[in-house]
Structures are given as structure tokens and as C-alpha cells.
């Protein structure tokens, strides 16, 4: 599958933004992050900026961005529509959280924060389900895809909250959470890659053509001499031979390095902790961009079974 930059950027940035919103809403009532209004407002604005930038990026993927509002209508059947509804709905408590924080309404801020956290989790869950519901793409049907989207959003969001907390000299709780989520994400991605490498294909050229009763099916003449939309979109193979190296880059830069930096920042404190946590968050986001790119580049679609093996 072609890794459209608009979608890679969207799921990475919005995932981090929703993760940040989730932890802010959850940890603030528990007193695990600085309780003052300026800190919470800064975290909220960063979360909303990331979410909004990601959603705007996703519009760039559409043939008709001006009609995007129509995507809110089919939530009964479509996970993409549900994602849109959840994203818009999450803006309501997240938006109201801002005046509640500025006016010091602690009870309302706690309730709105928890609602925003629930909305953030629901939105990321819908994002994962868009992919997990597509039968023709076996790499996306894998049971670790949805947990992966949720966990990586939690990881990157916690890393961002740890960065903000470190600047205030109080980022221990989100740092610990980011380390735990990062370690879990590391293990999950390794298990996912092992899983998709070992899984059998969902269909074969024999079942795609029904000619298996005669014998092994080989392509003879292509239907078109030039490429087409199907091959460009679904037969994306560029740099797949670098997949093993990119997996290592994603694991090292996206998970191992941020975890190590946060482990150093945890006891450090002060400006050193802030610098280390900032670097950790930046590396986590970069690593997730690589991971998300691989999510697409490594995914195969059954339509390529109709084309020569070189297109699969």
C-alpha cells in the first residue's frame, strides 16, 4: 500500500496529540502532573495544535476536501466516519476545558479532561479499526494493529507530557508512563512484525482467478502496458527491500533511544531533564513516522494477486 505522506503525518501527529490529551485529562485530576493553569493550558494547546494539524493533513488526502463534512454521516457502517465523528466530538470537551482551566473551575476541568481523554481514546481506536477492518490487506487485519495504534498514541503523548513536565521540574509520572508505554510498544511492534512475516497470504492467484483446479497460475500478458491507479496505490513496493533496516531504525530511534533518554532524565531534574525529555519526544515522533510509513509500505493488497509477482 502506498504510504501517502498526508496519512502518515496525520496518524502520527494526531495520535501524539490525542495521547497527550488523554494523559492530561487522566493525570491532572490524580495530581500526577503540575496542577497549575498555565501548565495545563500549554499541554492542552499543544495537544489541540497536533490534533488539528494532523486532521488538516488528512484532508490533503481527499480528492474533494471541501466535502469532508459529508464524512460525518455514515457512522452506522463506516469506521472512517466514526473516526470523524469521534474527532469532532472530542473538540467539545477539549475546547471547553480551556475556559474551565483559565477560570479555575477545578471540578469542571477534571470532568471535561476525563471526557476529552475518553474522546481521544475513542478516536484513536476508530483510526486503528479503519485499517483492521480491511479484509484485503492481511498486514492490517492483524490483531495487534488496533492495540498498536492505541499504545503508540499513548507512548508519544506521554513523551510530550513528560517534556512539558520536565520544563516545570515535575515530569516524573509521565516520564515513567512513557518508559512503560515505550517498552510495551517496542515489544508489540516486534511481535507484530514477527506475526506478519509468518502469516500465510489471505488469498492466492489460484483463488483470485479460480483457475487453481487446472494447476499453478502464472501471469502471462498484463492487461495494460503502463501502470495504473491500482498498482500505484495498492502495489507500492518502493524501498520494501529496506524494510528490515527501517524496522531497526524505528525500534532504535522511536522506542529504545527515547526510553534511554527518559531513564536518564528521570533522576536528572532541572534543565538537563528538560533537554533530555525534549530530545526523547522528538525522537519518538520521528521513529513513529518511520513506523507508520512501514505500516503502509509493508502492507500487501489482494488486487496485486492479479498482477505479476513483481507487483506484489
Amino acid at each position, binding site marked *: 500500500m502506498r504510504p501517502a505522506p498526508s496519512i502518515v503525518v496525520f496518524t502520527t501527529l494526531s495520535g501524539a496529540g490525542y495521547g497527550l490529551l488523554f494523559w492530561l485529562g487522566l493525570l491532572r485530576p490524580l495530581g500526577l502532573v503540575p496542577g497549575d493553569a498555565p501548565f495545563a493550558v500549554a499541554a492542552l494547546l499543544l495537544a489541540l495544535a497536533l490534533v488539528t494539524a494532523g486532521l488538516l493533513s488528512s484532508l490533503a488526502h481527499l*480528492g474533494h476536501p471541501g466535502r469532508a463534512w459529508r464524512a460525518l454521516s*455514515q457512522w452506522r457502517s463506516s469506521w472512517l466516519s466514526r473516526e470523524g465523528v469521534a474527532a469532532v466530538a472530542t473538540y467539545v470537551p477539549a475546547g471547553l476545558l480551556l475556559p474551565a482551566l483559565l477560570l479555575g473551575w477545578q471540578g469542571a476541568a477534571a470532568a471535561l479532561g476525563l471526557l476529552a481523554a475518553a474522546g481521544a481514546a475513542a478516536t484513536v481506536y476508530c483510526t486503528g479499526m479503519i485499517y483492521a477492518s480491511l479484509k484485503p490487506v492481511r498486514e492490517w487485519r492483524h490483531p495487534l494493529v488496533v492495540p498498536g495504534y492505541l499504545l503508540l498514541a499513548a507512548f508519544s503523548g506521554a513523551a510530550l507530557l513528560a517534556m512539558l513536565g520536565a520544563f516545570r521540574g515535575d515530569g516524573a509520572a509521565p516520564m515513567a508512563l512513557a518508559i512503560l508505554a515505550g517498552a510495551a510498544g517496542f515489544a508489540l511492534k516486534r511481535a507484530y512484525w514477527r506475526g506478519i512475516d509468518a502469516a500465510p497470504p489471505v*488469498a492466492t492467484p489460484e483463488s483470485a482467478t479460480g*483457475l487453481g483446479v*487446472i494447476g499453478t497460475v502464472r501471469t*502471462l*500478458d*498484463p492487461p495494460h502496458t503502463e501502470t495504473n491507479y491500482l498498482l500505484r496505490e495498492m502495489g507500492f513496493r518502493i524501498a520494501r527491500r529496506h524494510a528490515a533496516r527501517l524496522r531497526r531504525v524505528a525500534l532504535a530511534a522511536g522506542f529504545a533511544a527515547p526510553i534511554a533518554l527518559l531513564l536518564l532524565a528521570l533522576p536528572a531534574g532541572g534543565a538537563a531533564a528538560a533537554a533530555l525529555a525534549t530530545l526523547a519526544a522528538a525522537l519518538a515522533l520521528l521513529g513513529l513516522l518511520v513506523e507508520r510509513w512501514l505500516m503502509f509500505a509493508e502492507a500487501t493488497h489482494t488486487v496485486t494477486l492479479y498482477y505479476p509477482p513483481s507487483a506484489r
Partner: protein
Amino acid sequence: MTSLPDPAPGAKKLGLVIDLDTCVGCHACAVNCKEWNTSGHLAPLPDFNPYAAGAEGVWFNRVHAYEAGEGEAGRTVHFPRSCLHCEQPACVTVCPTGASYKRAEDGIVLVNPETCIGCGLCAWACPYGARELDEDAGVMKKCTLCIDRIYNETIPEAQRQPACVLTCPARARHFGDLGDPESAVSRLVRERGGYDLMPEMGYRPVNKYLPPRRRAVAGAPPQEAAPRAEEIANPLLRWVDRVLSR
């Protein structure tokens, strides 16, 4: 509405039956489809760089060719691929806007180009590659089963069939109601063992494919009949034959 219509008992299921035994791979179906549909219900079917290297465009029908089996048992099979108007079309249910829909009255799967946002999710959801994005108009395009021909009362009744079916010189394509067990296409499917593509995906295609017929098994090579002695007219040769036959 992208929720699927409730299947009414006895409802029409219009679709195609494609005979892989007689298809000669001439691409006439694909060309006539393009010709009709570029000014039809989902018009246009654009081409990019049509007169230069890298020419490509939107087609509803693509004709592949395969080899199946080995040696003498091997076959060359021409294989037209288009929308199968599935009974469980995930391309419809994933659509976030309702632009993609399945008609309750005849089961045809269509796209409303006025409300399609061009997100491409339906093309991802189709295992068969039936949908191609019109990158000019920014909306998804697909086979309409020539909905503007089959119900068109301004053309002679004999022509109220999909363009691909009408043009096929080998009569390899058949159009009809696969929901009616007594229709000509349903009988054809029964008699010839018509099958679904990728049944393991669970999309339950309406279109069916007829397998290549079993080739007649070649027996032992024919024996040349040896002439009997009385059939040799020349007396000298008749004598030589008798001597040599001893």
C-alpha cells in the same frame, strides 16, 4: 446510506457471467466499456498522458491473461476483471459519506460522484481492484453495469445490455438476473459449474466465472492401417509382399 439494503426474497441480482472457455482476450469488452462509459452514468473516464509514455487512465474492465497448469495439461486463459457487484460489498459499508451504495432493487453497486470525497477507502476495501480513482475529478469510478443502457427505453430492446456483453465477439459474456434460479444466466452457471472469485474473502460476488472446459483426453496415436495383400494391384509387388511377409 452505506448500510447495505436488507435482501428482499426474490429480489433481482443483476450481474455478469464470464465464460473463460471462450474468451479470446481481444479486449473488445474493455474498449467498448470505455467508449460507452466515458460519456455514461459515471462519465468521464479520463486518460492521463494519452499520447505519450506513461499513458494511463480509468477503466472499468481489465483483461488479464494467465497460464494455469503444466505441460500438456497447461492452459492459457484470458481473464476479464471488473466489478462483481458483491452481495457483501465492503466498498459500500466503509464509505464515510454515503456516496457508495448498493441498489436494493437490482443489487447494482454505484458511486454518487456528487457526494464522493475521493478518500479512496472503498478501493482499499475491494479485494478485486474494481474501483479506480478519477484523479482528474477527485472521485471514485467503477463499473455501473451500464445502468444507462439496461434500463434505457430510447434504445432498441436487444441493445439494453451492458456494452461489454453486446460487443463480445466470442459470446463469452452474459448478462442477466442471477437472483432468479430459472434465468438463462443462472442455468448457465449451474450447467457449467460457475464459481466465485476469492470466495474466502466472504464478499459473495454476484458475477460468476465459467471455468475452461476440460480438454478432450488424447488417446493413443492412430495406427496406420496396413494394406491387405489383395489390395496390392501390381502383381510383382504382391509377390514381393508375400515373400517378405513369410
